[in-house]
């Protein structure tokens, strides 16, 4: 492969950044959906992505891609529902610490189950539409990148429609605003919590399924993905959907540029340092409301 010009390298890193940033954005969306309804952070969010990737690899061997994709989403969605029903719903008046411990326990369990089924190996699958990269602005871009951007875009669009136009979506937003009032007007908050977990799991699964052809997937990738996705969520203002998407892209680009021009070993640390920075300096995030954040239980 010919050596890329500096401009070409830049384009390459930008595309990588935007690609991986879309994934972070989707993970962040998952965090936000659950946070908005329950005010809790689901530490197992990254595991949904991991499961999405591994199940997709497995099912794509026997089924046509679109079917495998939908199956993956359905299965992980079911996992999310089971998680909510068995571990979250019973703990109605739990302390924050208990909720943290519970989602951590579930994430460990999911990791263990994944290791049991798939072992410790990294799995790869063929990109959705072939391995020939596309030449663009002096860089070689994987076709999978466009799939990722496309699917992320569709996810964001569907979510927006869901929240603006459907009854359930509007009900979920109402819960996010004021759970007590929502309950009083007859919204079944319990069901909204269940829905939030199902949605988050589905989105996570989609992200995992679509990134695996590029970056492989193994049983213990969940923690780091979850952390970075959380970083994007906080950076964009916890609870803000548009913020999550923008922050995710931003995070991905910064990480990719650092990996390319500075050091690839510390690539993961970049996102984490940004996370710490945001939490320490401006927990309301780039786009969050500072006054509102003061009332939030930071």
């Amino acid at each position, binding site marked *: 492969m010919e050596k890329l010009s500096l401009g070409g390298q830049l384009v390459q890193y930008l595309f990588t950044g935007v690609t991986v940033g879309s994934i972070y954005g989707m993970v962040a969306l998952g965090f936000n959906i659950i946070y908005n309804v329950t005010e*809790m*952070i689901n*530490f197992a969010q990254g595991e949904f992505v991991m499961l999405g990737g591994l199940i997709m690899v497995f099912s794509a061997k026997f089924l046509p891609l679109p079917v495998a994709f939908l199956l993956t989403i359905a299965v992980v969605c079911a996992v999310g529902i089971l998680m909510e029903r068995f*571990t979250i719903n*019973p*703990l109605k008046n*739990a302390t*924050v*610490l*208990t909720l*943290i*411990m*519970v989602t*951590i*326990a*579930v*994430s*460990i*369990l999911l*990791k*263990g*189950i994944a*290791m*049991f089924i798939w072992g*410790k190996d990294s799995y790869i699958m063929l990109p959705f539409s072939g391995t020939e990269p596309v030449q663009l602005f002096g860089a070689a871009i994987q076709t999978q990148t466009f799939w990722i951007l496309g699917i992320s875009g569709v996810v964001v669009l569907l979510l927006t429609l869901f929240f603006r136009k459907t009854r359930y979506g509007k009900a979920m937003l109402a819960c996010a605003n004021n759970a007590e009032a929502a309950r009083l007007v007859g919204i079944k908050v319990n069901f909204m919590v269940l829905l939030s977990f199902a949605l988050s799991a589905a989105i996570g699964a989609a992200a995992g399924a679509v990134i695996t052809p590029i970056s492989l997937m193994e049983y213990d990738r969940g*923690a*780091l993905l979850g*952390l970075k996705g*959380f*970083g994007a969520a*906080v950076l964009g203002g916890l609870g803000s959907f548009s913020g999550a998407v923008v922050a995710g892209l931003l995070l991905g680009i910064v990480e990719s540029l650092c990996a390319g021009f500075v*050091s690839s*070993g*510390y690539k*993961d*640390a970049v996102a*984490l*340092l940004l*996370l*710490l920075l945001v*939490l*320490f300096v401006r*927990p309301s995030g780039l786009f969050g409301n500072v006054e509102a954040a003061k009332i939030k*239980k*930071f």
Partner: protein
Amino acid sequence: MQDRTALLSLIVLLVLFPVFVTQVEAISHYLDVMIFVGIFSLISMGLSLLMGYAGQISLGHAAFFGLGAYTSGILCVKLAVSPWLAMVAGPLLTAVVAYAVGVPSLKLKGHYLAMATLGFGVIVRIVLNEEVGLTGGPSGLSDVPGLKILGAPLDSELSFYILVWTLVLLVLVFCLNVVHSRIGRALRSIHDSELAADAMGVETARYKVMIFVLSAVLASLGGSLYAHYVGFLSPSSFNLLFSIKLVMMVVVGGMRSLWGALLGTWLLTFLGNEWLHVFKDFDILVYGAILLLVVMALPEGLVSVVSRLGEVRKRGKESAG
């Protein structure tokens, strides 16, 4: 006082343990496991103060453990510093890092504090992995020297056992004293209502940082001992899973009690080093299941079972008498 009886019982058990265990060939290696129990107990007692008493959380304490271990390791291996001196340098360095991280982190609460400490822990592990020149990277750091007292090397399991557990007992007594004092009450008041504690004049921010630094220093001390006992360090021992195991030791045993931390540490260390060997790598399934069960069914930890039994007995005596 209950604590005094518990302490005496513990001392008796600790003295009898090696005597008994060395007689039975099949479990003679339990002495080695108990050394690890002691080392981890230093960390878990600190965590118990932080989580159970002050009501905070840290998902990154493996980082402080690692900082202590690697400081000792690097100073001894690369700079031929005396291990005892390194064991003073380690906690000092850790205290500085813990303070720098603690001050901004402890302004956060709940999930955000958990995430911040989680992030910090992973960053340290990455640094340990990447700075190959300093730490040996993923292949690890080996030939960390053992400890010597007055020229005599502590190279038997028994001698290390005595060293570690003497230290644990000293720290335990110190922590028990702190718990039963105005400082212990201040910590617990922060846990129950930080707002009211502020209004009563308790320096909540200062205490939170202080107890965070103390717990980090204890973890670092444990790390140094670990380095000199095992002689070999690898970044994968100081990962997120270990941080979670540390938290589990405190939660499973019973957060609101130092004895709970000791109980949880003993149980989880023996599980990990001994009884779960049959599961090999799948021991994490067992850990996840235990954590889930305890958190959902027995949130006050195992120690609460013990104290509830005590209450039942007391009530039985009262009604019988």
